[in-house]
């Protein structure tokens, strides 16, 4: 009971930190990207958000428990992603600033000069993010349930965390997320260090753990475990690198667009790979768990079950609060990503005040849906494949649009994204066996084929490069330059 209260109080404090601002953000623009002046550290914690999530907390240790060192694919893809984002993120920010983007949908709409393409991408992006949002909320509930052993605490914590996330996102926007992101990362690192210290005390040192594994389960130190073979490692890493390098997850656009300068983004990309070293701790915990826990232990429960074995209750409480924060920060960023796509790009033209009202309504609906799915234990977590698989289909189009001249038309791009996303959906819903391959990677094949064929047809019918709508200089806009004078 004491542990439950401690965790619920921790969750409330995290939420309170997010709301802790005297002024409510009333403009859609400042709500989404602040003043576009985020310095290095603020950008750092916002951009690092994807490294330490419920996946790092629950999933990674579970993969190491079942698949051994193949779990390092997460370290590989997250690190390689920064190699790509070093080049891509400053370019996205540059366009965002010069042409006034708030969302990924704005980018597609403008670069391909197509409102409908912005809409299609936004609808696919928003739908694909719902399972990811539900995963965070369910993950939070699971963390609390495992730490306290109470199912009622699970449901209560999910409801409280969802309400708090909705409140602080609506009130503070990106600024609130940044505040909580800083706390989250500090807590996550502390939790990982605490668990590592517990392991060292329990086993007499980290090398002792691996020496024991080498004797009792040597296959886990290789990449020859069934289901976690080289094909798994290569395809899982490759598809995530393609997606992450081109920033295909819509909720990761505001931190990039809000950065103060290109130099801030390059600097973070240069150093953020170091952050991935923290992920070796959950991998080590997962491997150590092989020596302690029964073989049939569910993967997602490994890290917290091990914490319960090696740590006192109050430290388990701190680890659980850190885990809860690891769910709340991505959840808040995701819900912001969904609401801005729907409000700005799908619904569109509205007065500024009405836009914020609709935005709040979308936040409530999105979180409400994810919470409802989570509470009834609906397994849309399995649909998480759709999140990565479908959003990865945006990568070729983003790559095309990052060039100075956009040489492919909106129709070929739209058709290719729809073809790729449908392929992912068919593979997922029809349960087509694809072995260790990733559905998103497979779907890139029809995506690219449709793109090439449709563009060839467009060119044959006289289609040319996309001419960008002429833009004014900011000075001329501020001076009241008319539209006709601008082009």
């Amino acid at each position, binding site marked *: 009971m004491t542990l439950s209260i401690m965790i619920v109080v921790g969750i409330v404090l995290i939420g309170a930190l997010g709301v802790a601002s005297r002024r409510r953000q009333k403009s859609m623009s400042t709500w989404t990207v602040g003043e576009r002046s985020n310095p290095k550290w603020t950008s750092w914690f916002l951009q690092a958000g994807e490294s330490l999530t419920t996946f790092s907390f629950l999933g990674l240790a579970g993969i190491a428990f079942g698949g051994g060192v193949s779990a390092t694919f997460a370290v590989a893809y997250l690190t390689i992603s920064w190699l790509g984002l070093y080049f891509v993120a400053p370019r996205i920010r540059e366009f965002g600033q*010069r042409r006034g983007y708030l969302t990924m949908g704005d980018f597609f709409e403008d670069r391909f000069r197509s409102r409908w393409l912005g809409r299609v991408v936004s609808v696919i992006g928003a739908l694909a993010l719902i399972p990811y949002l539900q995963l965070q909320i369910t993950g939070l509930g699971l963390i609390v349930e495992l730490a306290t052993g109470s199912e009622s605490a699970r449901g209560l914590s999910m409801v409280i965390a969802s309400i708090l996330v909705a409140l602080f996102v609506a009130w503070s926007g990106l600024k609130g997320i940044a505040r909580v992101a800083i706390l989250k990362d500090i807590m996550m690192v502390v939790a990982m260090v605490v668990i590592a210290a517990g392991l060292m005390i329990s086993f007499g040192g980290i090398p002792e753990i691996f020496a024991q594994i080498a004797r009792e389960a040597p296959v886990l130190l*290789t990449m020859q475990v069934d289901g976690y073979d080289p094909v798994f490692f290569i395809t899982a890493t490759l598809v995530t690198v393609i997606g992450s390098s081109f920033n295909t997850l819509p909720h990761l656009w505001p931190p990039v667009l809000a950065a103060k300068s290109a130099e801030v983004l390059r600097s973070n990309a*240069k150093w953020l790979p170091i952050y991935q070293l923290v992920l*070796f701790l959950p991998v080590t915990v997962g491997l150590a768990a092989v020596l302690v826990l029964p073989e049939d232990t569910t993967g997602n429960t490994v890290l917290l079950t091990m914490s319960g074995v090696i740590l006192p209750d109050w430290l388990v409480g701190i680890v659980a609060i850190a885990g809860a924060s690891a769910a709340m920060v991505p959840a808040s960023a995701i819900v912001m990503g969904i609401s801005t796509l729907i409000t700005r790009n799908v619904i569109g033209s509205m007065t500024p005040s009405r836009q914020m009202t609709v935005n709040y309504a979308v936040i409530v609906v999105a979180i409400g849906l994810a919470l409802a799915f989570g509470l009834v234990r609906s397994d849309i977590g399995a649909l998480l494949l759709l999140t990565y698989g479908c959003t990865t289909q945006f990568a070729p189009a983003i790559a095309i649009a990052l060039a100075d001249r956009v040489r492919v038309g909106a129709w070929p791009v739209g058709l290719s994204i729809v073809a790729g996303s449908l392929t992912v959906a068919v593979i997922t819903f029809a349960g087509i066996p694809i072995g260790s391959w990733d559905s998103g990677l497979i779907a890139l094949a029809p995506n690219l084929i449709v793109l090439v064929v449709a563009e060839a047809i467009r060119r044959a019918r006289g289609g040319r490069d996309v001419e960008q709508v002429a833009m004014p200089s900011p000075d001329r806009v501020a001076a009241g330059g008319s539209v*006709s004078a601008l082009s």
Partner: protein
Amino acid sequence: MKPRLFTLGRLAIVSVPALGFFAIPFLPFAQEPVLWLGLPAVLVWSALMVLLSVVALQIVEVLYLRAGGREADQQEERFATQQIEQIRAARIAAEESEGVR
């Protein structure tokens, strides 16, 4: 003229650690239970590739700054939020007048 951040030479530099990661399943130490300094060889190699990635990006950054990136950073346009909103409004108006919307 603003220098290009992305060049094939810089891509080649960052490809080294990326290939180091993708090669892991095919390296001999990933086929056998090998420990280096008491730690799994795959983990040690991955950690080295993380550090190599940082080094590769530092080299790329130095090359970019030497090629004019430093001046480009100093001259970078930074618009106020309100200006950017006006830019957006003007863009949308232009799109509407051209029948894009």
